């Protein structure tokens, strides 16, 4: 019988990560940021080499509930530190929005093994539908967001259909074609604003309170972006819960089985058509929600934010973090959004950085920063 590992390891680790994140986000000097990135990288390598990381993982998997609660508290506390620095809140919100989209992409790329480069297009569909409904018809955000999701889901289904007869390269080619087609169409329609995009997208209103307006309570000024940040965190929480449950269910199992061996899957009664379409639809729903959140956050949406490159970037995020591991995907997305923002002076080198990250991850650590683990099913280990 294996001993339950102590919660303490996980607790210390979570606190350390929290402190590291706060310090990193608070620093405004680029040289410092660069030094800190190197320091963190070294520290994480050391963590793995000394075996501490294994203890941390055991501690997490043995005390999942308590540590999840702790992490949630930390996450909720993070924006509090930056009420005087809306720029940091802006980056965090952006990163969380992208997380919603990449969690969805992970269903296709990580779980099902279908490399989908069109997630940027679904992101855009969600954003455009939500923004246009709000702008032209005055529909509330709370209705236009689900509408954006449904539209993205519908197009996900539509794109899924031609992929059913294809695999690997051909499948990726379908998604690339879809990404370019939707990009070009949106760019050339009049009612989408064409190359000018849509401006002045309204902020959501909840019980008469406009999420995004600055509030002063008892001398403390809370920037509007903080409220939006909390709203996005709530959405991210829901997305995580849904993705976690899908992963640890018959859906996730079927997706993995299809990824590993299609013929064997069919011989055990799986319908490839059904499972693959489900993967596309669920993934697109996430992307649609992310797109709608993005459009109403920035207040502006143009085709630049739904191009093929965005989809490519999202694939990089999933691979960097760890395919088929939700926590890994979160880490990958945060890194690829936050680090380039922190090193703004090297902005020209951003794409080069993404390309090099992609190649080096594939060559040296294809399983990603946090590799996937078998499902555990709450069973006691038998002797």
């Amino acid at each position: 019988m294996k001993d339950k590992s102590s919660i303490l390891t996980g607790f210390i680790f979570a606190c350390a990560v929290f402190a590291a994140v706060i310090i990193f986000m608070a620093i405004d000097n680029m040289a410092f940021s660069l030094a800190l990135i190197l320091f963190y990288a070294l520290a994480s390598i050391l963590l793995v080499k000394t075996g501490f990381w294994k203890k941390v993982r055991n501690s997490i998997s043995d005390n999942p509930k308590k540590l999840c609660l702790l992490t949630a508290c930390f996450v909720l506390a993070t924006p509090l530190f930056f009420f005087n620095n809306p720029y940091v809140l802006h980056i965090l919100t952006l990163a969380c929005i992208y997380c919603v989209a990449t969690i969805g992409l992970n269903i296709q790329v990580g779980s099902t093994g279908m490399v989908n480069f069109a997630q940027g297009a679904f992101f855009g569909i969600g954003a455009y539908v939500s923004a246009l409904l709000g702008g032209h018809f005055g529909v509330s955000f709370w209705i236009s967001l689900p509408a954006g999701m449904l539209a993205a889901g519908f197009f996900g289904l539509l794109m899924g259909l031609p992929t059913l007869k294809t695999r690997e390269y051909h499948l990726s080619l379908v998604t690339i074609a879809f990404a370019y087609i939707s990009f070009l169409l949106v760019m050339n329609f009049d009612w989408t604003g064409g190359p000018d995009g849509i401006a002045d997208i309204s902020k959501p209103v909840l019980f008469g309170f406009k999420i995004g307006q600055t509030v002063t309570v008892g001398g403390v000024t809370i920037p509007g972006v903080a409220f939006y940040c909390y709203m996005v965190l709530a959405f991210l929480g829901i997305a995580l819960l849904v993705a976690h449950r899908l992963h640890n269910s018959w859906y996730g199992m079927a997706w993995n089985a299809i990824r590993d061996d299609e013929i064997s899957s069919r011989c055990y009664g799986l319908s490839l058509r059904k499972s693959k379409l489900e993967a596309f639809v669920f993934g697109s729903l996430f992307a649609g929600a992310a797109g709608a959140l993005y459009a109403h956050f920035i207040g502006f949406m143009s085709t630049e934010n739904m191009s093929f490159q965005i989809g490519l970037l999202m694939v990089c995020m999933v691979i960097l973090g760890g395919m088929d591991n939700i926590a890994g995907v979160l880490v990958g997305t945060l890194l690829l959004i936050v680090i380039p923002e922190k090193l703004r002076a090297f902005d020209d080198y951003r794409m080069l950085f993404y390309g090099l990250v992609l190649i080096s991850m594939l060559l040296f650590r294809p399983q990603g920063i946090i590799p996937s683990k078998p499902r555990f099913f709450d069973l006691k280990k038998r002797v």
Partner: protein
Amino acid sequence: MNTHNIAAKPLLQTTELSMEFGGLKALNSVDVTVSEGEVVGLIGPNGAGKTTFFNMLTGIYAPSAGAINMSGISLVGLSPTKIANLGVIRTFQTCRLWDDMSILENLLMGTYMRKKPGLFQTLLQYQKVKDDFAEKADEALKVVGEFDTALSSDYDRKVGELSLVDRRRVEISRAILARPRLLLLDEPAAGMDPSETRQLMGDIKKLQSAFVKMGVVLIEHDMTVISGVADKVVILNFGTKIAEGSFVDVKNNPEVIAAYLGGEAHA
């Protein structure tokens, strides 16, 4: 083995089943009948069309001509998914497991066709999904534990890391968990040593007594397995059935001897 009952209901019947690959006849007018509770051994030299036969039964290839009848339903033109749902379950010569999944995950996927929680329960009543998994996992580990308790205690190892024998055990367990009405085993003893082979024979017999109505078709080169478990033997050579009957009858059939001596001598 001599429980073979002439009055048993036929489970699977192929009539004049043929398969052509661009002019090459891989299978030529093969008639095979499998009754409920019967173990049929399918033997023949390499390239005789044995695996092709399985591929057609499971819908991976569509036959060029002929009929496949599974207790009144024609399997021709059905997808592998539908055929699996009718209770035809196979193992593969090269052990096609889901390599990046754990032993337990592989076994559980064997139960995929049973009743399971749907989307609503997955998203809103997650406890039901957990209970369902726990219950089926118990059963799955019991089945694989019959082969080797190491497999049931180390259930979260990835199957890609397992030895060939263990992979076969997981694959056969997975097939059993699918509750087949007709079980197709493609060279289950390949790569096993004599004691493991004996154990496998014992397991097949155990299966037979546990599921009395299940039919089994067994491709095997190891004649001790065939003589030990098969009620009936069908011999294929160059895609044609050259003999059928009990192992003792078939063994002395001159045509069979010629086929084996002329082809690769496995027997």
